[in-house]
């Protein structure tokens, strides 16, 4: 029943699937990058002289996680545009 309701609002199953997929992907990216940022903050607070290296590593890890999430966004876009 919920699926029918969503279908009415969404308009077509593929657009619905694309939207839900993109949302889930961004959720995963947000959680991942949040965890990276949190542990980086903690490490910088514990050992301030390593802050530069920790920050560099954080940026690199965040970019890799973001890349994976953007894979999913690209797929969701393809699905929604069919």
């Amino acid at each position, binding site marked *: 029943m919920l699926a029918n309701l969503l279908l009415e609002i969404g308009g077509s199953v593929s657009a619905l699937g694309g939207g839900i997929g993109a949302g889930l992907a961004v959720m995963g990216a947000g959680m991942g990058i949040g965890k990276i940022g949190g542990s980086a903050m903690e490490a910088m607070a514990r050992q301030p002289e390593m802050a530069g290296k920790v920050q560099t590593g954080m940026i*690199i890890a965040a*970019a*890799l996680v973001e*890349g994976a999430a953007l*894979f999913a966004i690209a797929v969701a876009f393809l699905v929604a545009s069919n």
Partner: protein
Amino acid sequence: MKTMRYNYFIISILALFLVTSSAKASEDSGEKFDATSMIIHHIKDAHDWHLFDTKNADGTTHAVSISLPIILLTEGNLDVFLSSEFHHGQHEVVKGDRIYKIEHEHILETSGKKVLDFSITKNVTSMFLSAILLLVIFASVASAYKRQPNAAPSGFQNFFETLIVFIRDDVAIPNLGEKNYKKYLPYLLTLFFFIWFNNLLGLLPTGANMSGNIAFTMTLAVVTLIVTNVSGNGHYWSHIFWTPGVPLPLRIIILPLEVIGIFTKPFALMIRLFANITAGHIIILSLASFIFIFKSFAVGIPVSAFMFVMTCLELFVAILQAYIFTLLTALFIGLATEEPEHGHGHEAHH
């Protein structure tokens, strides 16, 4: 507050008003604003460089654009003409026995012949522009070194020396080792600056979305694939086809996975750059279309401020994605050219 800083503040506030007022100006057009087609038009490649729209005396919009040459190869016949002959898609162009029409920036031949499109499109022109920019800047930096080899650098040379030394000391040497980083350093530097300049040019108003073009990123990823695998030594290939430190049945399973892994790493590079840049452009354009949909100052001013913040983020993403592409390329080349340690005690192979 210093006078100069006060001026910048005033100008930025005024700029926020500009965007909202330009949206109000189109209020009387009557038709509903189509956000999707506007966004897609700004992301995609085009056969002419669209600058802005003006209104004719009778109220219809007239697009002002620089028309670029179209080069088509249809069954052995080369046709070269300017895209202005299409008159923005309303006219059909006749060359000999071939009739071309353009639909959504896709050129078709009316009798169904196969058309190979080698046109100088907006993205190609932007690529030429960034190549010329790179040549001019780096030729001047190199000649500054030649003229005075031991002088303290200044100006352009100073700025680019910082970045070049950063790539050499923090990207190339840690990943490729002291002995053979020099072979690959030109490629890494080209990759970094080319991607960064293209990202920045895409962010300018009327800029072409070059790094958000998947063909561009695919070409860079293919070059990385070729460089990595051509410079792979025996150690690298033996690890792929016959992973050491692993029982025999697992080796048979790991073999196809490792072979696929050769291709997925550059594939991820391609998707990462393409999606980051395109997503950034879509975010900024979607925010702009908010203003055009709601057409009120109450929406316009906070959205314009948000657009400014997003553009700053996009500037950061521009250099970050160039750095990540270069870093991962250096990492892959380093993994491929790694010398085995003495004794080859690789029991803990990841």
